[in-house]
């Protein structure tokens, strides 16, 4: 199914998305990857607030290349999500619901997604030049010292994504491959 959706990712919206759906996403997302997640989770452990309101937020696992003069951002494709598995349940616990990345997730992340109605979207890994075209605004909001890993607020328009894991735990990496193999078997 093809969906054009606008953030924030409310629980109702999240529950209407299913693994395998093609999604064109519009709205505000926050960028963070390894070092940013570590720092955010350390801040939460100390009882501090995050640099952005996590309620119904979507986090894009990306470390963009620097913007050339006149560009909003450099290339900006997803990084491997599995490295954020240690932090993702904590982020969902405080309200973040959407994750954009690529690659497999651990069962404990999927369990947290079921519990908190989280959605894991896939962007095409390695398509950083293409994905950058959907990013209309970019603003650095925290952890500037982390360079490419700093926290940024992005406004994206019609960002092409696929729902990889939905909040019922269905996983396109399993179902997509199984469907392909089944179809091949019938030939």
């Amino acid at each position, binding site marked *: 199914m093809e969906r054009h959706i606008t953030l924030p990712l409310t629980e109702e919206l999240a529950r209407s998305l299913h693994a395998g759906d093609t999604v064109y996403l519009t709205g505000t997302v926050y960028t963070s990857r390894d070092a940013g997640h570590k720092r955010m989770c350390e801040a939460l452990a100390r009882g501090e607030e995050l640099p952005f309101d996590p309620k119904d937020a979507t986090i894009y696992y990306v470390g963009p290349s620097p*913007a050339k003069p006149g560009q909003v951002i450099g290339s900006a494709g997803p990084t491997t999500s599995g490295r954020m598995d240690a932090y993702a349940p904590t982020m969902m616990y405080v309200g973040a619901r959407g994750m954009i990345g690529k690659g497999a997730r651990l069962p404990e992340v999927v369990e947290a997604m079921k519990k908190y109605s989280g959605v894991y979207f896939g962007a095409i890994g390695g*398509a950083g030049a293409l994905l950058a075209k959907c990013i209309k605004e970019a603003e650095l909001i925290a952890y500037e010292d982390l360079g490419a890993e700093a926290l940024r607020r992005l406004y994206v328009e019609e960002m092409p994504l696929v729902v990889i894991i939905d909040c019922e735990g269905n996983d396109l990496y399993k179902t997509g491959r199984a469907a392909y193999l089944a179809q091949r078997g019938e030939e």
Partner: protein
Amino acid sequence: MREIQAETITDVVERLCVEANEYLPEDVKCALRDCRAREDWPAAQDVLDKIIENYEIAQRQEVPICQDTGMACVFLEIGQDVHISGGDLRGAVDEGVRRGYGKGYLRKSVVKDPLRRENTGDNTPAMLYTELVPGEQIRVTVAPKGFGSENMSAIRMFKPSAGLQGIRDFILETVEAAGPNPCPPMVIGVGIGGTFDKAALLAKKALLRPLDSRNPDPFYAGLEEEMLERINWLGIGPQGFGGRTTALGLNIETMPTHIAGMPCAINISCHVTRHRTEVI
């Protein structure tokens, strides 16, 4: 004896860092287009179309194909009749990387220390590989390597009794374990033989060989074709969404090894397998 200025090496490395990140090699583009033509699964066709569109945008707008502009792997084949003057070689190469990644607006992805993880801020040091060869030229290859795929690589010290079947199984097992993580369609470099470290180097060098070339030894050429076909039978597909195109190519490099061993390393790369060469 030919004199080559260190500054010349810096200039070439700088240029190659930028070009390698913006222009995908022709053989990789060709493999992507061929695989698209052969792909019959709609979800896979859609991903391959976007991947092709992406490298076209990068080339046209002179922006990095992928935001992970990698660690700068720099291979130098230095003619033994060359004398490098006006600076030290390591410094010249690192300066080229520093300038290329700075002026080229490439991402700085290197940390000073593997555990303490402070960014060096300029993508140095280069991963520098030097080899002395006959002649009076320097052949410079810059191969930026992203870590989404690098992390899925593997090495194993086999007993010789594991034989060909052991190697076959290891390749399939490594690709299966990598699954959607290394941005498939992948490129796979296999190094067999040598010592623990040489096998890994062979695997990395295998990624530099054009995808439309085969190992000159018919035994290994056959193994390359067989393993590519078997990988593309797994059904992982582009981005892991299912489909035929799991790998664009598989190259094997080998060297003599010890009577007691059979090291095998597998270096996984992605559809943005980059390398660019210039001869000084």
